[in-house]
Every structure is written in C-alpha cells, then in structure tokens.
C-alpha cells in the first residue's frame, strides 16, 4: 500500500505542476478556435482532438484541471472546516446548544439555496471576469455545503466527548479550546477526511450542473465541469472515446486523493 500512496502523491504533484505550467505546456491557447477542424479526432497538432468549436481539447483539459484542482479542494476544505466548527462545537457543548444548532442545520439543509446562487450572480457585474465568477461559485458551494457533515460530526463529537480519553484529558487539567483542539478535533479526522474526499467531486459536478443556470464557469474558461458536460450527449460521445479523457483524469485524481488521505484517516 505504501507504494500506491507514493505513486498517488507523485501523480498528483505531476498533474498539479503540469497544469500550473499550462501557459508553457499547452500547445494552443484554450480559447482559440481552429474553425477548419471542429470536432476533430486526435492528431499530431491536437493530441485529444478538438471540441465542437475547434478548440484544442488537450489545452482545455490542462487549464480546466488548473481551475478545478485549485478551487474544488479549497471549497471542500472550507465546507469541511465549517462542518467541524459548527458540528464539533455543538456536539461537544451538548444540551440546548446542540439541539438549537442541529435544528438550524436541519433547516439549512432544507432551504432552496439555488436561489441564493442565482441572486449572487445577479449582484455581480455582468463584465466580471470568468475566473472571478468561478471563484465566487466555488466559495458559495463551500459556504453552503457543510450542513450534512455537521450533523454527523456533531453526533461523533457528542460520542467522543463522553469517551474515556476525553475524561482523562479533562482530569489532567485540559479544558475549553485546548481540549477541543488537542483532543477532540484529531479524533474527528476520519469524518473530516471523508467529507473532504466526497466534497471535491461533488462540488466539481455541482459547478457543472450550475452551468445549466449560467452559474458555473463563463466562456471561454474551461473547468472539469464544463468539459464533463460534453459527455451529456452520450450516444454521440461513445463514438469518440477521447472525449472521456477529462472524466478518466477526474476519476484518477479523486482516487489519488483517497490514497493520499488513507494514512491520515486513522485516528490519533
């Protein structure tokens, strides 16, 4: 298993480096339309062919990976931290605070937040840059995606706070923030990492789905989400297997996250 982890780390580092250096590695600008070769098969000039507007797919995968690989984990981290903060403190405190916070969480889970996303988009200037728009989308997803995990973390924190090692820690004089930070949070890591690992692909796909409402990334900037939307016309796509490359890359990257996190998921 150790070699698998090493391979995963190396792979992630390679992908990240290549994408960060996309300006030098990409054979063509991601927005440039080669209009004489739309929907082209892979060739020497276009390693993964071109999309329906003649844009080099390989370049778009590089830049799209850069956008999604930076922003989705950042949003996932944000939602995980919010979940541990809200759920953890509520579970640790217990009694009326826990009940109040969990009632609020249940309400939060039920509301149609789609309208908030639409409202925020409306408040942004029309001429905002595509990258600003996608950063704001992912930030909102991070701010809205904590509620489900918070419930589980609350239950976990509640159970942990009554455990023997916490009793021992209290008896040793640990209290308040130190008790939470040094003893509780490390033991919440399994759920935290599960939440993080799930959130990354969920946010990427949510960004793709929000494109239907104009809330995702704006043209011509690519993201994994916008590249995956090419697969929605599946019957046509099955005849062009190179279109699956972004999906395969996506699956492999998410799997490498799992391998990297696996060692960390064991409790302290």
């Amino acid at each position, binding site marked *: *298993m150790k070699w*698998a982890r090493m391979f995963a780390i190396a792979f992630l580092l390679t992908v990240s480096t290549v994408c960060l250096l996309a300006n030098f590695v990409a054979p063509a600008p991601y927005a440039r339309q080669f209009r004489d070769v739309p929907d082209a098969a892979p060739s020497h000039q276009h390693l993964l062919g071109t999309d329906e507007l003649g844009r080099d797919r390989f370049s778009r995968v590089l830049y799209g990976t850069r956008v999604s690989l930076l922003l989705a984990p950042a949003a996932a981290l944000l939602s995980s931290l919010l979940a541990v903060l809200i759920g953890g403190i509520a579970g640790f405190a217990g009694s009326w605070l826990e009940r109040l916070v*969990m*009632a609020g969480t*249940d*309400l939060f*889970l*039920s*509301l*149609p*937040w*789609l*309208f*908030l996303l*639409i*409202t925020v988009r*409306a408040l942004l200037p029309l001429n905002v840059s595509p990258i600003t728009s996608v950063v704001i989308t992912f930030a909102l997803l991070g701010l809205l995606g904590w509620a*489900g*995990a918070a*419930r*589980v973390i*609350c*239950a*976990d924190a*509640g*159970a942990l706070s009554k455990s023997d090692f916490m009793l021992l820690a209290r008896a040793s004089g640990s209290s308040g923030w130190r008790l939470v930070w040094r003893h509780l949070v490390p*033991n919440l890591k*399994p*759920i935290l*990492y*599960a939440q993080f*690992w*799930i959130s990354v*692909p*969920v946010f990427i*796909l949510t960004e*793709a*789905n929000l494109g239907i409402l104009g809330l995702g990334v704006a043209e011509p900037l690519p993201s994994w989400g916008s590249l*995956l*939307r090419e*697969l*929605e016309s*599946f*019957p046509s796509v099955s005849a062009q297997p190179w279109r699956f490359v972004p*999906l395969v890359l*996506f*699956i492999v990257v*998410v*799997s490498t996250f*799992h*391998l990297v996190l*696996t060692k960390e*998921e*064991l*409790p302290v």
Partner: protein
Amino acid sequence: MSRLAKLAAKMLIAVLLGGFLGATLVRLAPGFGVDEEELDTRLNGQSMQALREQQAPERNLFVFYFRYLNRLMHGDLGISRTLQRPVSQLVAERLPETLKSVGLGLALGWALGLSLAIVVVMSRAWYFDLLASSLAGLLLCLPAAVLALLFVTAQAPVRLILGLIVFPKVFRYSRNLLTRSSSLPHVLTARAKGVGNMRLLFWHILPTAVPQLLALAGVSVSLAFAAAIPMEALCDLPGVGQLAWKAAMGRDVPLLVNLTMIVTLVTLLANSTSELMGQTLRTDRA
C-alpha cells in the same frame, strides 16, 4: 409537556420558518414576477399588464405568507402558478413517485455502502479497500446525466440511480467510522483474545459507531431528496423533484413554499428519528 410533544412543536416551528425562508429566497431572487409568455409578440399592452399583475399577490411576502397560513389551516395549499393546478393535487400525484425512488435509493445505497464498508474493515485487505474506494470514486465522479443515459441505454430501472448516488457517501463515511472503531483498544483486545469476526463486528465495532451511523442515516434522507431533483428532471420521472425544478425555473412561490415545507418536515423527521434512536440505544447500553 412530554418529550414527543416538545419535539412536534419544535418541528412545526421549523417547518413554518423553513417555508417562510424558502419563500423569501425565491422572492428576492432575480426573475421573480416575470413570465416567459411576456415575450409572445401577439400580446397587446393590456394583456401584458394583466400577465404582470398575476404575481402581485406574492410581491409582499408577509401578506402572502399570512394568507397562505390562513388557507393552510383549512387544508388549502394554494394554486401552482406555473401549472395552474391545486398544489395539494400536484403533491398527492407526485409524492408517491419520489418516495418510491428515495426509498429504493436509500435501501440500495445503504445495503451496498454499509456492506462494502464492513467487508473492507473486517478483511483488512488493502486491495479490497482500493477496489471498493475506486468504485465509490468512480460513481462520485460520474455526472448524473451520464449515469441516467447509461441506465436508459441499458434499459435498467432509472430509480436505482439514486442508490448509486447515495452509495459512495455512505460507503466512505461508514468505512472511516468502522475503521476507527476497529482500531480502538477494546477491539484489539477482543481480537487478540480470539473473538470471532461476527461477534467482533456486532458486539464491539458497530456499537461504537452507531450514533454516527444513525446521524448519517438521517442526513442521507435529505441527501437522497436533494439528489432526486436532478435525477427526476433528467429521467423525466413525474415526482416532486421534477416539480421542484419546474417551480424553481418558473419562480412559482406557492409551489416552492409547500415543497420547501415538505422537505423540511422530511429532513426533521429523519434526523429527529435517528437522534431519538441514538439516544435510546445509548440509554439501553448504559
């Protein structure tokens, strides 16, 4: 006041608050009060004005909500503006479809997720873990539209898609929780003393993870409902998810308020039930 009565009162307040907040979000969102029919070039000025006046009763949120609650007490859920039919009729027709899908989805998701997590934890074989995690990762990464098309192409029942959406999340959480439980000192001791796998699982590993698993069960219900919306919209299943999507696109406040309240109620019921069960189990063990 008994515990159940307190819980019921709390849920009622939350449901009403949920309805009001949902209505607020819709009312404040851009596109409220407009109708696609306004682009019909045949309409003259008066017809256009009449069209715009149709949403006047919903402009003042507090007045709208007060009237809505008043009608609700008489069993009238209002009329859907986009579908021009009583909301109660629409919900009665479509809720069973969604409940079927959600029920099936949760059953499949939990059966697959929990059982795979148990196999991974009990076998302690890294290749099982890798395989199961890869499967979960694959399903997490597949867009719902692709999943739907795959199912339709293979002529498989599309309701099972929800199960494949729920499974990776249930698997991941369960795997991590059970892995942590299995590395607790008392489990290591039991293993060292030769306790069999079944007994180890049901007497030592599962019980320590039960409160969290129950919380996850409660959350998975609202997760399944949320996933039902895009799934029903994609696969054209006539459930409340599809209804919610149409209502959102049409900014149909009467319909959205009711749907928000139903979802709030279901979420509260699921999470309260899992909380109660968790507390009961803890009391029993104590």
